[in-house]
């Protein structure tokens, strides 16, 4: 099965073409075809689960390597592989896509075939980003994810969709051009006529490829720009609330669920591996930005009247934790950051789903339009509470495990330290403030005339939330298998950052 990764990457794109061009496909069928297709991809990705088959969590190096020369003139390879850093993000993507497509059943009623096609195409792009080990190939996948998202927001979005989508596109595109320049520079400087990331990293660790300190820092910043916008790290976040507010529910779910993680993943895979010195140099400054983002996002979330915008700003806050964990530059912090990316994908994806559900019923996302849902929609509210508590970081649920691990990493990091942890923890307090404030006004209180007729959760909606809730509990109570599968790769990566760091 040495083509398993290629199969997983390209199958969705094939599905997109089928959904788009198959003759006589009704909207109704298109949705089901897309769902079955994405489920097939998910099933194919199951053997990747560490311990179940082809992926060995006890190994640090890249596995399931597929490498063939592609554009030999420039030394570009078609090079896919997976390791402990990307394995859970790949599985997160294949797991979330069917759920997202399920959410289109209610949310999308116009140009359905195109929508499903874009969703599937987007999946190819995202999986490609997580799996590509060739810088050039990575960049192509990276830019490729922009196109479907651009249309998902631009065609199916709300009133200000054009503004939002153009801003999303230009902002992320402009930042990634900087990364492209840095990639080219690395290629030229290395002079081995190769874009292979693992080879380049190896050369850097062996001192065969030595970057000038200043130049290394500049190149670090170029990569940093692309990823910081994507995460988004404060103050590069302002495209996110607009994009989320305008995007249709499935678009928001996949945007928060997976697309933001491309940034966090990029930090780990590229910034940390390629520029150990610059990583150490910039870590405190980036930590400051992350902490500001944690508090700032949470604080602003509290002032929102639109539930979706509240969740969007909560993402700014939560992704701040991820960045903090990464730039703790120690194994604990990176463990936590990777798990927290998965957690955020699950919890925030679920949050956008539950917002979408009441939007479908009430055609409003204003907090003031609701009240007393706990009485009319008890099952829905019960699940919402669980998801909200996971986002708040209640122990025994997934969010806590990630955030606490990040905090332990931050506190013991020689580059960050207790001040960063203390300020980060303020964000944990604020998460309870804005989410419970929302819960109080939407779910508690008396039923109003408008909310009295809202029906409780449907079976379709239940089938979207149950898998997410199950994972919320599983990761909360037994995250050990998740950590163990990444342990070797993360430790090896931390070793590459300097001998001091591996000790803690």
């Amino acid at each position, binding site marked *: 099965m040495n083509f398993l990764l290629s199969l997983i990457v390209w199958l969705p794109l094939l599905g997109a073409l089928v959904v788009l061009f198959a003759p006589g496909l009704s909207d109704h069928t298109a949705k089901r075809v897309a769902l079955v297709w994405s489920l097939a991809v998910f099933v194919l990705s199951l053997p990747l689960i560490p311990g179940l088959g082809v992926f060995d969590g006890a190994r640090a190096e890249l596995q399931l390597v597929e490498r063939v020369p592609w554009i030999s003139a420039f030394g570009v390879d078609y090079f896919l592989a997976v390791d402990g850093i990307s394995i859970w993000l790949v599985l997160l993507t294949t797991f979330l896509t069917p759920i997202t497509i399920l959410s289109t059943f209610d949310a999308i009623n116009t140009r359905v075939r195109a929508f499903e096609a874009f969703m599937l195409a987007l999946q190819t792009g995202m999986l490609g980003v997580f799996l590509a080990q060739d810088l050039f190939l990575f960049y192509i996948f990276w830019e490729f994810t922009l196109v479907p998202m651009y249309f998902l927001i631009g065609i199916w979005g709300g009133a200000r969709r*054009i503004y939002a989508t153009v801003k999303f596109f230009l902002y992320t595109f402009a930042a990634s051009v900087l990364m492209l320049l840095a990639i080219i520079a690395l290629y*030229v400087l290395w002079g081995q006529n190769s874009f292979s990331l693992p080879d380049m990293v190896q050369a850097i660790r062996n001192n065969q490829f030595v970057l000038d300190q200043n130049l290394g820092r500049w190149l670090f910043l170029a990569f940093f720009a692309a990823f910081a916008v994507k995460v988004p790290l404060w*103050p590069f976040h302002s495209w996110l609330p607009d994009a989320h507010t305008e995007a249709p529910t499935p678009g928001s779910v996949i945007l928060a669920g997976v697309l933001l993680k491309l940034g966090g993943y990029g930090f780990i895979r590229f910034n940390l591996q390629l520029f150990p010195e610059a990583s150490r140099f910039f870590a405190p400054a980036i930590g400051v930005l992350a902490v500001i983002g944690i508090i700032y996002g949470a604080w602003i979330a509290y002032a929102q009247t639109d539930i979706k915008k509240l969740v969007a700003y909560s993402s700014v806050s939560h992704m701040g934790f991820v960045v903090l964990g990464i730039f703790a530059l120690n194994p604990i912090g990176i463990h936590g950051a990777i798990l927290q990316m998965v957690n955020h994908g699950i919890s925030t994806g679920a949050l956008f789903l539950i917002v979408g559900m009441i939007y479908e019923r009430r055609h409003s996302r204003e907090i003031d339009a609701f009240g007393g849902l706990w009485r009319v929609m008890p099952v829905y509210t019960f699940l919402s509470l669980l998801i909200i508590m996971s986002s708040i970081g209640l122990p025994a649920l997934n969010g806590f495990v990630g955030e606490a691990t990040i905090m332990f990493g931050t*506190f013991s990091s020689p580059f960050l330290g207790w001040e960063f942890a203390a300020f980060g923890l303020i964000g944990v307090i604020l998460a309870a403030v804005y989410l419970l404030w929302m819960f*109080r006004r939407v779910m*508690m*209180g008396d039923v109003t005339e408008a909310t009295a007729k809202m029906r409780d959760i449907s079976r379709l909606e239940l089938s979207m939330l149950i898998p997410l809730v199950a994972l919320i509990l599983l990761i909360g109570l037994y995250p050990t298998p998740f950590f*163990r599968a990444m342990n070797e790769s993360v430790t090896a990566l931390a070793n590459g950052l300097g001998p001091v760091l591996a000790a803690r």
Partner: protein
Amino acid sequence: MEETLFTLIPAIIVLPLLGALINTFLIRDGRRAGMVASLACGAAFVVGLAAFALLAGLPHEEQTHIDLTLWQWIDAGPLDVPFGFLFDPLSAVMVLLITGVGSLIHVFSIGYMAHDARPVRYFVYLNLFVAAMLILVLANNYLLLFLGWEGVGLCSYLLIGHSFERKEARYASMKAFVMNRIGDFGLMLALLALFQHFGSLNYGVIFPRAAELAGQQINWVLGPTALASAIAFCMLIGVSGKSAQIPLWTWLPDAMAGPTPASALIHAATMVTSGVYLIVRSHSIFLQTQAISNLTVYVGVATAFVAASIAIGQYDIKRVLAFSTVSQLGFMVAAAGMGAYTAAIFHLLTHGVFKALLFLGAGSVIHGAHDVQDMRRMGGLRSAMPTTFLTYMAGTLALSGIPIWAGFFSKDEIIGSAFHGTRFGTYPVSGTILIITAALTAFYMARQVSLVFLGQQRDTSYHAHESEPIMTIPLWILAVGSTIAGIINFPGLHFLDHFLEPVFEVGHAVQEPLEFNIPLAIITVVLALAAGWVAYQVYGKRQWKKTFRDPLARYLGVFFEGFEQRWYADDVYDTMVVRPFKATASFLSRILDPLGIDGLVNGAAWLVGFGGRGLRRAQTGYVRSYTLVFFLGVIAVLGYFGFATVR
């Protein structure tokens, strides 16, 4: 024997959890849910009792080694946390209190919640709470303790907000959760620092090595500080949140918006005592820092006194008890700060019994008086509710510290420790304030009994009735408990002292059992009796109108106003914290983010791409061609570099 224990201990936690699951998914009928929940909690008590007996039978030195790991909870490189439990004498007595008093409250609730709109949910929360609280006291490491710690916070939130149609319930539930979270912030910081130093969060690793903290210092804004002090201080923040001490105490009185039996269990007998448990559990750390131990004493004493003064000025039957709880928690925290750990646990246990009794009694009154809570509308309920009155008296006598009732022994042990001295020295001023507070306690309790049960019924618009047996039987059991519970650490016998000794040997914190101080006992009893007599003269002898103003208001003036208005603590927090927070949120959201940060972004975009043409036109389609040009440009650059390299 140890193997039996290893199977019993998880069962203690699993049973209430099972009850919660059964009620969530299978039961729809309130009464039946109550039975299931009570059965689950009762079974946990029986198992706990068996485990307790087994533990007591073990040799002294083995009693602190019943440590089992169920599974590896977190295993992230060096961070290694088990999902494991420690069953030692300290957790054993806590388990018995939680499940024992808990069971009675479950049974009482069946009657009390009979007319509630959502009784099944209530019992789910109650069972879940018991499970979380058991995890808190049984955890063998700090992170699992933290799981229980926040878990009980969640259940408290759910129970306070149970009647979420009522505004005060909604607000109180959120206030409770957030204030607890502020406390948890401190506790979490303490955990981070402990891990940083010891590389582990397990009690078994940290406590034997706690002395290492002594010489360590950290540098921060205010200069170098002893590491032990920093850690203990952070823990104290957590204690202040959970156990409602100054400054994070204002959530507890509001928490009375929850159903009364829930207040009895969570906001009186168990959850709020977890702060005291935390200090006692962490005694080896607190022993390293005289400064923070002193601070703990002062916080406890100040809270005890201030809350008792507020209790005098309340008219709501539950509020009086709420402030009384805050005040009694102050006693326990003060004792724990002094290093009188057994005294703190002793009072925790007796208070758990008699305060649960008082709350359930108040619940019985409210139930029988058709949801009237204002004591001014009561009066003369003695004749309508004889059982409730009689049992309530047992609780009152216990709380007021009248011999032979339980509170007399436990409270006296705290006051005695303050004067007699501990390893930290004596606390004569604190002890004196505590004596005065004890007298105030007797005063407000006599006031309450006079207003509720004595005289004539002032508001005759309702017909009070005695509660049904399912509610009165738990009252009787607790009344007997409140009367005889002093036996568990009776002077001269010192059962509890001896039983807990192994726990304190680990941190070298064993104290000689305190001998009974007869002059001190005479002083406190005489003062308490005198205060009670005065209150009876003022409130019990006259027939008041149903809208009367407290006669003390005339004599105490602004002071009484302070009592009544809880010393304006809520207003101060509102002005100094809540409102600035909201205003800043609004500023960030309306001005800084859209005009500042986003303004910069849009401005940059305008400068780069759309200068002169204007954003509006650019938004309508030009951008696509623009990005295309951009993209082609990049490819050209790429091509050039590639070409140059190949050549």
